[in-house]
């Protein structure tokens, strides 16, 4: 791996870390998607086969995994809008840093709406 000299244009800080997070969440979501299409395909086998596998998604550990998955999707979605705005707005690159903090704010609000409901479903009476 060639090492970049210090003081390059966007090494470190918000620009690079949002890029890293976008990659990591993207790859995670892709591998979940492969598994999710395969497990859903079990509806074509039998109701029992599908229900048995989907039943494992309702355990507390998988419930926490789903919370993590939704967090990854929500970040990837909002940061994706930021990337589109950076690319298409004339002043996009100038405001990329501010827009990342808007993304973080929207992420917190969305997760605050989702987590109580989801964790209530996973850990509460049903």
């Amino acid at each position, binding site marked *: 791996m060639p090492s970049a000299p210090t003081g390059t244009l966007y090494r470190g800080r918000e620009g690079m870390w949002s890029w890293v997070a976008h990659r990591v969440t*993207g790859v995670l979501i892709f591998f979940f998607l492969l598994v999710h299409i395969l497990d859903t395909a079990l509806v*074509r086998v039998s109701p029992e086969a599908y229900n048995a596998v989907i039943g494992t998604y309702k355990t507390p550990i998988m419930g926490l995994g789903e919370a993590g998955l939704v967090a990854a999707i929500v970040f990837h979605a909002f940061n994706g809008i930021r990337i589109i705005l950076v690319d298409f707005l004339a002043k996009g690159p100038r405001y990329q840093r501010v827009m990342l903090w808007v993304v973080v704010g929207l992420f917190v609000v969305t997760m605050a709406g989702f987590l109580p409901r989801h964790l209530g479903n996973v850990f509460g009476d049903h």
Partner: protein
Amino acid sequence: MTTPAIADPRTRYSRRKATRGNYELYSWVFMRASGAILIILIFGHLFVNLMVGKGVHAIDFAFVGGKWSNPVWQIWDLLMLWLAMIHGTNGVRTVINDYAQRDLLRLWLKILLYAATIVVVTLGTLVIFTFEPCHAGADPSTVASFCQAR
């Protein structure tokens, strides 16, 4: 005496020559266009499957049967399947190109990626269109409520 052929000193600059088509441009546009549509499709999917009612506890064979008896959800899920898989495959292709430095490794990783994508998209599409919500011989408690009426 013949005059020697002298090349035109100012041959027209052609941007096209250096590139191998506009593939990467189309890929760049597709990531943004599909991403914008996927936000609507996936947020809707997550809201209906995880937020409404009992959330993840409501999901079973009958739940899927109920959803896919409605053509709107069939088309919703079909679009989501194709767009998300192509968007994800293109993203992972970029990651492979960035980090797999040996030519042969890069080639095989991409062959594996495209093979997985073709299998999964084909399987998913077949499942959406050949799914039978009132599965023959199934335990009545496992299928959608509208199956009893038949």
